[in-house]
């Protein structure tokens, strides 16, 4: 059933995607690459074509890109509103850059209505699809059996004891928002990032890479000190620090420019995305090498930030990712034959 449905939506989105490409070609200064405009699957080409992506990214980073009458924002907004899954992915693909540029421009008091419209569209979509309800999970309690384990002695007092599963809220309920009120900004972007995370498998590497780079900017702290975390080598560290003082002062100043507040409502989806970028990708793939490295760098920066904020929750979560990176380096492949010089029959 599902394949048939997909086919229907595919042919349906074909014309929408064609229209989207046409209107995009009027916006971009250089023409849309022929690989996209003449593609059999235009939506997927829009999502994956690197040349087109860099054109759009370049546009989004222009100084006047976020204003209300910006054509590209308009295009992203319209494309998202086609309600075609594969075209919505195209919009989400640019979410990292859009959110990154948007957040860094907040203190500059520039007009940002264009960006906000896109963000609100994504938020509204999520609100509708979740029906405003919070996302919760029930944490397992091992005193009950499950598919993966049995228990020998079931608890006698099944009603009185606290053997109920522990509910936890992953993402609180959503209210519709007509505009981006400043105090709701982090939540709206957080929800958009949650949606991005849920589609992350379909996102091109470059999009995730953009995201990691913005994380480093947002953290606004130098993570290089935590390269060998959790092993501190004081001497080495000191050397590194000296290096920084000599050569890196200007660089650090530059880096700190985009530091933003990172409340948990944004931090949580950020960490899930970064977790994917270090643990959930195929590291053997050449394309992913850069991503892995940048994600590690982002995690180190966020750890430095968590320490600066003395934020226990973030120290715990980011710290565990840092340790996992460390363990990753020393992991053994158990599917390999053991090394031996003896020939067994």
């Amino acid at each position: 059933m599902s394949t048939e449905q997909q086919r229907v939506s595919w042919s349906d989105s074909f014309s929408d995607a064609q229209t989207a490409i046409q209107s995009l070609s009027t916006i971009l200064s250089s023409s849309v690459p022929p690989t996209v405009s003449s593609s059999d699957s235009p939506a997927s080409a829009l999502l994956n074509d690197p040349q087109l992506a860099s054109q759009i990214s370049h546009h989004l980073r222009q100084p006047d890109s976020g204003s209300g009458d910006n054509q590209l924002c308009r295009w992203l907004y319209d494309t998202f509103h086609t309600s075609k899954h594969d075209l919505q992915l195209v919009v989400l693909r640019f979410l990292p850059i859009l959110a990154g540029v948007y957040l860094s421009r907040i203190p500059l008091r520039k007009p940002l209505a264009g960006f906000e419209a896109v963000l609100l569209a994504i938020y509204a979509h999520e609100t509708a699809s979740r029906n405003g309800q919070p996302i919760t999970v029930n944490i397992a309690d091992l005193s009950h059996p499950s598919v993966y384990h049995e228990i020998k002695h079931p608890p006698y007092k099944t009603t009185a004891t606290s053997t109920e599963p522990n509910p936890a809220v992953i993402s609180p309920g959503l209210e519709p928002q007509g505009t981006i009120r400043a105090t709701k900004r982090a939540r709206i972007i957080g929800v958009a990032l949650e949606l991005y995370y849920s589609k992350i498998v379909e996102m091109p590497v470059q999009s995730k890479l953009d995201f990691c780079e913005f994380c480093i900017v947002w953290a606004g702290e130098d993570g290089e000190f935590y390269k060998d975390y959790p092993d501190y080598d004081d001497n080495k560290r000191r050397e590194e620090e000296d290096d920084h003082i000599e050569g890196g002062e200007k660089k650090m100043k530059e880096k700190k420019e985009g530091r933003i507040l990172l409340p948990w409502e944004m931090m949580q989806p950020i960490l899930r995305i970064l977790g994917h970028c270090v643990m959930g990708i195929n590291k053997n793939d050449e394309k992913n090498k850069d991503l892995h490295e940048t994600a590690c760098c982002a995690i180190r920066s966020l750890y430095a930030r968590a320490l600066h904020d003395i934020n226990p929750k973030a120290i715990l979560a980011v710290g565990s990712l840092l340790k996992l990176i460390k363990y990753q380096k020393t992991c053994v492949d158990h599917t390999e034959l053991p090394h031996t010089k003896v020939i067994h029959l």
Partner: protein
Amino acid sequence: MKKQQEAQALIGRLEYQRGNVEAALKVFEGIDIPAAIERLQSISNDKKSGSHSESGPQQGANLVLEAIYLKTKSLQKLNRVNDAAEECKKVLDAVEKIFPHGIPDAFVETKLQETISRAVQLLPQLWAEAGCYQEAVSSYRRALLTQWNLDNECCARIQTNFAVFLLYSGVQVDPPATSTQIDRTYVPKNNLEEAILLLMILMRKFSLGKAKWDPTVVEHLTFALSICSLQSTVLAKQLEEVIPGVIHRVQLWKTLALCCNQRATALDLLKKALHKHEKPDDITSLLLAAKLCSEDGFLAAQGTEYAQRAVDDCKNRNQDLKGVCLRVSGLCYGKQAIVSSSDYERSRLQSEALKSLEEAIDLEPDNSDLVFELAIQYAMHRDLNNALRLSKQYIDATGGSMLKGWRLLALILSAQQRFQEAEVVTSAALDETAKWDQGPLLRLKAKLRIAQSRHMDAIETYRQLLALIQAQKKSYGSVQTTNQVEDDRVNEYEVWQGLANLYSSLSRWKDAEICLEKAREIIECSSETLHVEGTIYQRRGEIDEALATYVNSLLLEASYVPSKISIGAIMSDRGLPMLPVARTMLSDALRLEPTNRMAWLHLGHVHKLDGRLSDAIDSFQAASMLEESDPIESF
């Protein structure tokens, strides 16, 4: 024929082990695998009826299966992941064909089993690498739910791998199907639940000694539970079950402190970790301990010590953290200043706080939290110009996203007696706030309107506030408010209280009574309500009743400052013999709240009546100075 195949398999393995993957693959491709499997199948069937534990066919089976497995590995190394997965699946299908009744126990310790275990482990990884996520999931589940005679270590590894897949792959996985609906069985509904279940099972295996400790598991679990907010207690419980010695004790205390919700417990754990025989200069623990102390006036003195140790530590290393050490040191001094009982001590602590925070901001000029904290500290120090500048800077840097920034700016303006501007700021803040979270701002607005003697407007604002509270009460539970306001929700009681005060100042006794009645419905007996009741009596000229009510409120809460001041004021009107009482009351109030303007004012009166004119002048001066810098709510 058979011998030839075995020889080929052997050659293939040798090539593989030498690293000649392509050559190995060529050799393996030359083996007619389906035929070999069929033959093994028939031997296995024969064996069931005939001889037992004969090494010949077993060895043959092993060689063939290993050949397929190594073909898989070769394909994987040549980046033909899809082919590799198909091939690996064949190993497992072959095993099921050869041993339709499960693998005989006799084989458990053999090389055959080793190959099977490797294949079971590898298959889901290959599917995942190939991007066939549904296949990956089903082969993970097949691995875990089918009897492959896997040893505990291998099973634990697969569980870990699956949990990692569920946690990080970003793939939305359908929950496992349950064939038997046993009551009270836990069925995970999504990735996160399933991953956490698997990781918890692994943790239990470790503590029962059924599998070798794998440090990654606890980190994955920490990450997964951190994602679910408020699940720190679950994590703490898991950590406590870990057998001693596996995690270094200092590390364990630190982690437990990080996931501990109670300040006292967390601090105890950190004290252990920072003991001189453990790791006394661990910067994270020091910072955390200092931060915890900075939240409680009575612990703040301890906190300054921790912060000082952290600052000293930064001279040698961790220079990048110097700013945050100074910051937390400043916070501790500031908090200590608030509870300090002597004037001299207080001003010393306040200057220390300012000094530390100023040093910190030199190092981290872009840290907006620091900007806010310094603004507060300046405001406490009544350096309102600097406070104003910084609070504006904070709003700019955060883009107005923080309620507390708006509130601070409005309060600083109110302290400068610029009520109108403060109200404009509050209105701007209301625009940036969702209806649901407007409570504290509305309360502030009402107070600002009272300060401008716009009583009717204030009543209107209180009405809005009450409507909001009613709406919140109705939908309480269904809508969960988010972070910022949760700790700052306006309570209904406070609103009735404020409104009663307002009506009583307008001499609308009846309305005031109604409001007080409403307040009493929520908290039956409180010093605040009694105090408002007292002021109503006092304003109506029923002084004795007023006095009695004030005394009652003090009996309820001995350190309730407004009642002390009111009693002091009444006593000072009762002529010379009562002046010592009035003076005691007012001095007492000032000990508790040194910046209380009304207390200074009445004390001035007492001094004047008593003939101590220079004291009176000092007191009046203090009162008038404070009046010029008194915020409408405390900062």
